[in-house]
């Protein structure tokens, strides 16, 4: 695709943000407000800046990456604003910040490339673990942990009257991918050898298995201490997929799958909050007023959608609890119909295709695994949350990349975009 097409698509997304926001306010009989102009301007500034950074510091990067990201971000920006005006306005600041961070990443890697990240991998690991532990800080201090919706994933930064909450786990996710990729790029031969065997089952050297057990332990600790099922599955699933990719040994996939299955069924028996999620998934209407309420409201919203939806601003997605975060996809489907849902899925499909393409073409194992890990992060997040809201599996609270409201999530995902662009640039030089 040419540079001109990329620019045109980003302008089209900008137009979509402005028009969409205007339609929302018009439908709710507020007329066209200043919001439409601000939203479009912020969007244009963010993506314009990002485009500038890529052209300057990763000029050979693929032109296919930004347009699907822009479409997803645009739809998210409109719908979050539609559900909650204040959240929508806040999301614009996060978008500017996310673009700034992505630009910074591109600038920093301009000199020595992603290779430099390998050197700091244990620093990244320590930082990631630190981020994961941060929410466990006692509440009440200027910087302290906070429990929201039953999960202790948040850190609250107190500025006297105002407080800013963010989920450091989102940043940990990207740092861990960098660590995993560099660790596995180095150790993959050792992990791929299976010198020992018990009967027909061939095993690698036991010491090689230590990291996988460690990863499982950390994921399980996240589940136990932070009560976050989604992040737990995401972290462990990511590690297992990368391990499989690095070694070409499906045995790791099978072993990991078995650990997830036994961990999940064990968790269901031990943790009431996991059991409640399973019940709400299977029988949302049985405990309608209680645990099933959110899922049931999601079903009602979906039923309202039809082919083209109620129209932006004309539905009632605000009836679903957590509509702007977990249920943003259902909210969008209610108002833009199956057509809108298909568009979002198609954008994700394209995004994944670009990500995997970068991973497969990259000659260097580290860059290849890094691109794969970043893409798989997006795939797993999309699968977990869409599977949850569409009742394919129990609902785990996790954000839909680029679409859901959430500052930390937006920052982390724009970081992924910056890294993917950089890797794409390097494999063409």
């Amino acid at each position, binding site marked *: 695709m040419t540079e001109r097409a990329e620019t045109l698509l980003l302008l089209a997304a900008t137009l979509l943000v402005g028009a969409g926001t205007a339609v929302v306010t018009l439908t709710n009989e507020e007329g066209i407000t200043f919001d439409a102009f601000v939203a479009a301007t912020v969007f244009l500034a963010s993506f314009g800046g990002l485009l500038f950074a890529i052209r300057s510091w990763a000029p050979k990067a693929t032109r296919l990456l930004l347009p699907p990201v822009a479409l997803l971000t645009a739809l998210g920006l409109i719908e979050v604003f539609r559900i909650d005006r204040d959240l929508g306005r806040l999301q614009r600041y996060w978008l500017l910040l996310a673009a700034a961070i992505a630009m910074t990443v591109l600038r920093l890697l301009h000199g020595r490339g992603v290779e430099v990240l390998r050197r700091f991998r244990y620093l990244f690991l320590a930082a990631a673990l630190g981020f994961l532990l941060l929410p466990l800080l006692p509440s009440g201090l200027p910087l302290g942990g906070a429990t929201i919706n039953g999960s202790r994933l948040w850190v609250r930064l107190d500025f006297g009257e105002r407080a800013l909450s963010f989920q450091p786990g989102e940043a940990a996710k990207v740092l861990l991918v960098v660590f995993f990729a560099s660790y596995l790029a180095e150790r993959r031969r050792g992990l791929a050898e299976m010198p020992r065997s018990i009967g027909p089952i061939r095993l690698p050297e036991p010491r090689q298995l230590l990291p996988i057990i460690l990863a499982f332990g950390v994921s399980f600790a996240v589940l136990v201490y932070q009560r976050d099922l989604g992040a737990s599955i995401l972290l462990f699933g990511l590690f297992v997929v990368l391990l*499989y*990719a690095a070694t070409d040994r499906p045995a790791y996939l099978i072993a990991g799958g078995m650990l997830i299955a036994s961990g999940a069924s064990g968790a269901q028996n031990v943790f009431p909050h996991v059991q409640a999620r399973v019940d709400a998934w299977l029988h949302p209407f049985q405990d309608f007023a209680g645990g099933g309420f959110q899922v049931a409201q999601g079903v009602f919203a979906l039923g309202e959608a039809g082919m083209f939806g109620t129209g932006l601003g004309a539905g009632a997605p605000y009836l679903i609890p957590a509509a702007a975060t977990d249920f943003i996809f259902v909210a969008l489907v209610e108002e833009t119909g199956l057509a809108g849902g298909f568009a979002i899925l198609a954008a994700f499909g394209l995004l994944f295709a670009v990500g995997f393409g970068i991973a497969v073409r990259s000659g260097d194992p580290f860059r290849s695994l890094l691109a794969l890990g970043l893409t798989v992060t997006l795939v797993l997040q999309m699968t977990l949350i869409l599977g949850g809201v569409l009742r394919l599996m129990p609902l785990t609270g996790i954000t839909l990349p680029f679409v859901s409201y959430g500052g930390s999530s937006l920052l982390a995902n724009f970081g992924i975009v910056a890294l993917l662009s950089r890797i794409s640039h390097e494999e063409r030089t």
Partner: protein
Amino acid sequence: MSRAMRRIAAVSFGVVALLTAWLTFQQVLAGTTYSDDPRNLRSLPEPGDTRRGIVTSADGVILAEDRDGTRTYPEGESYLHIVGYVAGEDSAGIESTRAAGLRPLGDGSITSWLITLFGGSVEPPEVRLTVVDRIQRVAVEALRGRTGAVVALDPATGAILAYAVSPTQDPNELASGDVTVGEHLADPSSLDRVAFRLLPPGSTFKTLIAAAALEHGMSPDTVFEDTAEYLAPEAGLPITNATGGTCSGGTEITLREALAVSCNTTFAGLAVELGGAAISGIAERAGFNAVLPFELGAAISSIPAAADLNSDLGALAQTGLGERDVRVTPLQMAVIAASFGNEGQMMRPYIVDAVLTRDGTTLERTGSESLGQLIDPTVAADLVSMMIDVVSSGTGRAAAQAGIDVAGKTGTAEGAGGPHSWFLALAPAETPSIAIAIVIEGEGTGGTVAAPIAARILETWLGSP
């Protein structure tokens, strides 16, 4: 490494494809199943298009339509307990269960989008019932001035052919507000005597006792002692026959003869001999003590548990005559009778044949659905042959049709205001196309009151197919 990566990519695209298909499936499911849920705030009536479609009988008679913006029921009271009514916020019957199906189709759903895409009509649809107006008229006429119910269904499918209740009420008066819903609900005419009236089945229950006997190795020709009285072990009062003497006039009687003349002493003894487990067992297989799945709802027919029956043999003997604590709805009896004519297989009763667009495209069709095998086909065949004797030479002669074998069974159940008159019929007996259950409350015996009504319905049904 790249082979694994390609596989991971392929699986990821598979997930996107799966989610796309699943989203479509869930949307259609949610849009059809839950859009009417009372807990769904989105289902509150929209101010826009409030038109409703028409309801028609299987032979094309309009039963409900919008006339100048008013909901009108041209056949009036004849269909109250089927079609129901819409009165302000309240509704009943098909008008309630099919409220969503009767709405105009241009509502933005996928279905409506597809219909318009292929040039179909998005006018409010037509709900077509299985009820045949020709038969319904005869049933309504026969019930006029009486208290009772007539229900007829197709044994092979479970499609309801007639569903008449008396007393009844003109739904137009409810729609116009001349009679309030509160007043109507306090009136006896609001009771659906087909599906919600629980009565002792009387001797019609002997068909199930006979079926249980055949299942336990007896045959229609098994001989019993014929006595004028039967006293169950430890029971207080003896059971006697309607005639006062023995049933055959002699000292022996076959099972076939006993059913034909509805011999109380034989069946009381048979019930005690078979035992509580066999009796409550066959009754529960026939749908007692369970919810009958039916669009308009139905009361639960009941029979005591085996242990309770065995603990009081006098009561068990009376259970063999369909008295004491056995309670059944006419609809349940009709479903049971129909199964005898369908090789022992019970069919789920249904009343809506199809939902159609105004230009005739089928949107939804109710299929026949089995409720399970009540008895073996051979047992069913023996039972039908015995029931033919009921009509040809027994208590049900009033239901006989010239040139056509009719299988039937009379019943006379004790009631506070006089005996309730029951009749079950299946015709033509070789391959039945109709099964009927009739009950007239407080008027006399099954053979004299209910059987002649069956005769009139069969005449109409078999006379002009």
